[in-house]
């Protein structure tokens, strides 16, 4: 699998490239800003782009802008945005146009190579990846009338893992539940929250995130 890496901090960029190579990915481009990334993507489209959210010139959300541009021009390329912020708004912005193959991950996750390569593979396959901390902040959000109060603890756990963009298979592995039980919990969650079960995993994630981000 071919990957382009964009981050203006050289040491981090090189370390990340090396880690990805260790994990068996082929790093095809290493750049330091948005425009160079877009040029590289045009010249030699990779399967996945891993991009830092803060890059020159303003060091704010250049990474998000680059992600949107890549989604618009190359819908097949997965984009994983690395960020220093636990900001649900940024994560939701990334997927708000119903984009597929998109992920928002905290930067420190890169120290866990398994987690990193899992996220890369999922966005490459067109899935959605939302950092657990971001999901936790959404779930923990205080609401005037909180429908989440109607959920059991187990249902809330399932909801959280679902919001990270995981499949039923992954949920059952993570929570040590049988696939049948997971299905039952998922149905329960959707019924209690009054949501429509989407036709695929991505729609399910989007529906849950839209609900949480409301």
């Amino acid at each position, binding site marked *: 699998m071919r990957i382009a890496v964009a981050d203006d*901090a050289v*040491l*981090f960029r090189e*370390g*990340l490239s*090396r*880690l990805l190579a*260790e994990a068996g990915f082929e790093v095809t481009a290493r750049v330091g800003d948005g425009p160079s990334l877009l040029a590289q993507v045009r010249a030699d489209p990779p399967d996945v782009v891993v991009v830092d959210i*803060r890059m020159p010139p303003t*060091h704010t959300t250049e990474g998000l802008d680059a992600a949107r541009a890549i989604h618009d021009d190359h819908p097949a390329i997965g984009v994983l945005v690395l960020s*220093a912020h636990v900001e649900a708004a940024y994560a939701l912005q990334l997927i708000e146009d119903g984009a597929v193959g998109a992920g928002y991950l905290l*930067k*420190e996750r*890169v*120290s*866990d*190579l398994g987690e990193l390569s899992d996220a890369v593979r999922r966005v490459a396959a067109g899935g959605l990846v939302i950092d657990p901390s971001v999901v936790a902040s959404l779930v923990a959000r205080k609401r005037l009338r909180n429908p989440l109060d109607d959920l059991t603890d187990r249902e809330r756990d399932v909801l959280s893992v679902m919001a990270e963009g995981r499949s039923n298979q992954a949920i059952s592995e993570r929570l040590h539940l049988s696939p049948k039980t997971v299905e039952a919990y998922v149905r329960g969650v959707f019924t209690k929250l009054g949501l429509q079960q989407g036709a695929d995993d991505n729609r399910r994630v989007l529906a849950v995130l839209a609900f949480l981000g409301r």
Partner: protein
Amino acid sequence: MTSELVAGPLSHGSARLANRFATPVRRRTFWLGLWAAAAAAEFGALAPVLFRHVPFEPVDVVFRLVGGSFAACGLIAWHRRPDNHSGRLMTATGFALFVTPLFSQLGAPLARTVALWLPDLWVLFFVPLVLTLLTGGRLRTRSDRALVGVIVFELLVLAPLWLMFSPEQGNLFLVAPDERIAGVVDTAQRAVFVAVPVATAGVLAARWRAASAPGRRALLPGVAGAACLLLFALLVVVGLVTGERSQLLLWVAACSLVSVPAAFLWGLLRSRLARGGLADLFRGLRTMRPGDLQAALARALGDPALLIAYPRHGDLGYVDGDGASVVLPDADGERSFSRVERDGDVVAVLVYDSSLDDDPELVEAIGGAAALALENAQLHAEAQARLAELEASRERIIAAADGERRRIERNLHDGAQQRLVTLALQLSLIQRQIRRDPGDAELLLTSAGDELSRSLEELRELARGIHPAALDSGLEPALDALVLRSAVPTTLSVVPGDRLPEPVQFAAYLVASEALTNVAKYANATAVTVRVTRDDGGVVIEIADDGVGGADPTRGSGLRGLTDRVEALGGRLRLASPVDGGTVVTAELPHRDQADVSH
């Protein structure tokens, strides 16, 4: 009214107004003589009509009365405004109108010749009078001078030329009687008396269009005069076409001439009327709010654009009633100004249309009447200005604090956090390599160790930037640490004293820190001294370098922010930076609440 009275209690800002005091004060006998001469001339001109019962045209009586009215109004105006030439021009017009009637009564050939030569002498004074009402009787523009030049040419060249060929009785200029040549010259003269009025009216029409409301009031007699001149031009044209003088037009033209002194007198009286309105102003003043004062004075002066500028205490310039900055106009512009004083202090400056300079008594009277109210309004304006400054400074302090938070957030994200993430990544690499390739793992460890040291260094710098820990043990240790890090060799001297209140010593520290940063960046200095001294209830910190000087206090937000901080503590920040003379930054910081803080 005499001109001494004009000096009054007020001093004037306008150079033009100062002129009037330079005009020599004329003796009473001078005016008595002129009035006597005018009365005698009027009497002499009317005498044949009144006593000798000689045949005369009724319209001639009108002309002679017009002369008298010009002389009388002119003398009043001249007396009232010795600096203004309009009065003199009007007086001269009046006397000029008497020349031909008086001299024609004398039998001597010389007098007869003068009477024949100068029947139109009055035009020489009347046209400039009409043209220069806005400039106090002074010819300022080229068109004004050209018009007067044409009249002079008529009087000095064409009129004598006509006399040389005109077979009039008692004509001393006669060279050779020739009806044909005399006719040609006469036509040229008539052409001049058509062209000059039309051109004068054109010039006045253009000025009227460009004039302000008070300016138009001052122009009114000029417009009346231009209308008269046009009537005379029409008379000449009708004469040329029909071959005879239209009696009706002559009557209308002669009577209309009276409108000029009448309009001028009305202008003078209007001033007095406006002063009558002063009583209304005075009654309203006691209950008037500062904001309404300007509108009330504008009404009383008849200048809707009137502006009251209040001087700030401590030579801080002028502000309007809302505390906004005001710049006084230049002398000799379209706006003039006059200072209003109370007990020797300027409490306000009235900025008004320059045409009101013609009526300085009115401006003075209104300023004088409103002096007390203006003094109150000045205090109000001062308070407004201070409030505006306070709000601006508060906004700057908030903006500076926001900017500082943004800077800290960015430093944390891009600095320490980025390094720690990289460190985590390196540890992950080390974990994988430690068995497979111990040599590579060792290299990675060295790099990770460096990264960790840099993270710590950055965090330390950041923390010091937020609040130096050394300040906890007092100003001197903190300044010691600052001086130690200074890029330019720096000596520190601190006069020992009681512990300073927290905000005061932090402000002093920040002044020193910013000043030393600026020295390193801009001053090109070889040595700096930081001195802390104490005076009554306060501390003074001074940072002096031997660099290039020429520092601009408005450059950068750093110094502005420090000024706000120092002033918020009731102190003062000063910058002395002559070119090539080094730079000295001094902050005086009072700490009145020291006693409270020490308990």
